[in-house]
């Protein structure tokens, strides 16, 4: 069994939760972007069914995010994360092969890049983190200060990531349009 420090595990779990929470919520609220990207990638059944698929992915992400904060479910969550990372990597590779152009919508409407290298790299990181969790074993995450730290890291990470993902919107709302444009935020 791989020995992973409790604090490293807490930061890692909190970070994963923050990413999955942002991705899941964004897809749940604004599913159209990923719907378009998936339709471009593979032939999907019409509108409402594609929407149900995207909301299904969002639900899976939210459940996975929650699972990473429950020490008892850590091993299952790590296995699911490896599978999820594999799917993201596959989608990125398929996007590269098919040269898709629709924004991936991985974080809702705020992502403008199509499925491609970014998703391959993101999926690979998920696989590595999930693999590390599996190697650490079921008893690596334990209730106590480590679990509390993971929740705190997840909370702060969620806020920071949310602000980063919506930085353009925040700048547009806080600054006059002219300043934002001259800062290169809008074309």
């Amino acid at each position, binding site marked *: 069994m791989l020995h992973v420090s409790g604090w490293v595990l807490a930061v890692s779990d909190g970070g994963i939760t923050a990413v999955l929470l942002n991705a899941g919520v964004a897809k749940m*609220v604004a599913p159209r972007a990923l719907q378009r990207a998936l339709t471009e990638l593979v032939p999907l059944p019409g509108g409402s069914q594609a929407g149900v698929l995207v909301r299904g992915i969002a639900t899976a992400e939210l459940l996975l995010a929650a699972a990473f904060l429950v020490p008892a479910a850590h091993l299952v969550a790590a296995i699911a994360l490896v599978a999820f990372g594999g799917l993201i990597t596959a989608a990125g590779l398929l996007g590269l092969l098919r040269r898709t152009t629709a924004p991936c919508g991985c974080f809702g409407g705020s992502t403008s890049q199509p499925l491609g290298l970014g998703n391959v790299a993101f999926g690979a990181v998920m696989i590595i983190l999930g693999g590390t969790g599996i190697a650490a074993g079921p008893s690596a995450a334990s209730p106590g200060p480590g679990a*509390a730290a993971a929740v705190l890291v997840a909370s*702060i990470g969620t806020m920071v990531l*949310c602000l980063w993902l919506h930085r353009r*919107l925040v700048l547009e709302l806080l600054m006059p349009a002219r300043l934002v444009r001259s800062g290169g935020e809008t074309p």
Partner: protein
Amino acid sequence: MLIIFGIALLVVAAAVVVLFAMLGELATRIPAPGPTRRDPVVQPLEEVRLGGVPAYWPPGLRQAGGDRDLVLIVLSTVCSTCADIAFQLTEEPGHSDWGELAVVVSTGSESAGQSFITQHRLTAFRWFIDTGGDWISQQFGVRVSPTALVFSDGRLSSAYGFHDVAALRAKIAAERSGSMQKETA
């Protein structure tokens, strides 16, 4: 205690993410400011009475009715495109130099027509408020807006549906120069 505080903070963070996601989704539904790309198609209308002369000209257009060449732009207070047409006439790019132009505002009530004229500063043109669209429909059979009625030698020579005033103006200019060439030949 710490874990309860952490969970509470996580719930607040999730709520913030939901709010931002909704805000982002709403932002994508608002058209970007800047020059608007309008459909330049100028569509001839066939259901109007071409070649006709109105039985009378209403107040506000009597002087315009005496002109040999006239363009009547028919707008409605309840059509969103008409507000954009009014904006093009007065502001972007502005067509106050178009001497043969007059505006008819078709409306349900005189006060709504007055406020449309004031709001869009159409007083720069010759104008008439056509309550209920009675005059425009009885004299020319026009029941849609925005519409442009083109008069040559006092007669209704053509009628168009349009979205872009510049495209309409170019079309009418081409039409007028074409008919002038025919007369010369």
